[in-house]
């Protein structure tokens, strides 16, 4: 009886193991990949909205003499670096006065030089259009939502920093925010907002 059972068990096991694994129908696979992409899009948006929470206090950001100041601790008085570009920002922390969208590709080798160039362009701007580049003109300049997202990202990743200039750009092939902070000496940062972390930090010469 046991032998019979054992033989039956082996026979069925063998038959089942012969069955090929069915391939997922391509339309089903694509449908699920599409659903995952939609989910990813929602996830990309959600954290940025959460970053607004620290901005709930109206005084979370202050623009002093053209320098954006992201508070959170005892900071030295911000330096008047970009007075010519200064303009009021909203209580929500609008960085539009110092945010560019140059479409520039920053490289590891020239990062400090390119960041310095960004600061130079920003500090010499007499109006809100000064930082506009060809790439920016093509896209209509930094959108208000883009600036809001940049602000949210920087508040989350580098709080307690004063920001001289921000560029929505690319660093080593990855979309980043390049931010120059008013440290001594000023620091150029490439910020990966998707991972909420600083990829690289370099002092300006």
């Amino acid at each position, binding site marked *: 009886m046991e032998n019979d059972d054992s033989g039956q*068990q082996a*026979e069925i096991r063998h038959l089942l193991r012969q069955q090929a694994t069915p391939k*997922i129908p391509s339309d089903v696979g694509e449908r*699920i990949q599409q659903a995952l992409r939609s989910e990813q899009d929602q996830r990309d948006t959600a954290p940025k909205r959460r970053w607004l929470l620290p901005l709930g206090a109206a005084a979370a950001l202050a623009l002093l003499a053209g320098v954006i100041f992201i508070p959170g601790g005892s900071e030295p008085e911000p330096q008047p670096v970009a007075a010519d570009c200064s303009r009021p920002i909203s209580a929500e922390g609008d960085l539009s006065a110092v945010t560019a969208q140059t479409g520039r590709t920053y490289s590891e080798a020239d990062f400090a030089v390119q960041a310095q160039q960004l600061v130079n362009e920003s500090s010499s701007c007499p109006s809100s259009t000064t930082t506009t580049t060809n790439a920016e003109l093509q896209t209509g300049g930094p959108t208000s939502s883009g600036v809001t997202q940049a602000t949210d990202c920087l508040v989350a990743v580098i709080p307690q920093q004063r920001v001289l200039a921000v560029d929505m750009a690319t660093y080593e092939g990855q979309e980043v925010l390049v931010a120059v902070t008013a440290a001594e000496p000023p620091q150029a940062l490439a910020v990966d907002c998707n991972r909420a972390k600083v990829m690289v930090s370099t002092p300006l010469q």
Partner: protein
Amino acid sequence: MDDFSARDDQQLLSDHVAGDTQAFSELFRRHSDRLWAVAIRTCRDQEDAADALQEAMISAFRRAESFRGDAKVTTWLHRIVVNACLDRLRARKSKPTVPLPEAEPDLGTRDARDHIDEHVTRITVLEALDRLPEEQRLALTLVDLQGCSVEEASRILNVPDGTIKSRCFRGRSRMHELLRNPVETAHVTPNNAGENDDVREVDDGKR
């Protein structure tokens, strides 16, 4: 182009949690056939299987942070898929079973006798599997069709190893009976097979 082959499943899941926008899609692409096999054998209906698999993947996508790493990622994914399927089975328990498309023999090839015999045998094996009570079918799907170890199946279904062995044993015995008498197969359904076919949800850590 990212080289995903260098990253194992756990790394992909960690990367997804850390914000890698492609990691989870790759994880799904890598295991989609196996997950589909579990879904289709559990749900026994293409539409339900597709819906359940999608629901499961979205759930896994959202809950990736809760993965504790004490089991393989595939075990965790299988568990979520099984639960999604059981939820659907419970919802449509009163509805009639729709046979899988592959259960329809090709009558136009009757003259190719060997081929037909092979085809009929294959169909009958899967049909017989479909006729088993839920618990036995799930256990055999994981262990004999998917090649999971008993331990892995026990983790997916959240029951002791001995229970998996017992369900597999009873399931194979039942299948042997059904395959010896294919006519009977056509009249036996999971609801009158004389076994407890309660749809039980697997604890996947949600609670």
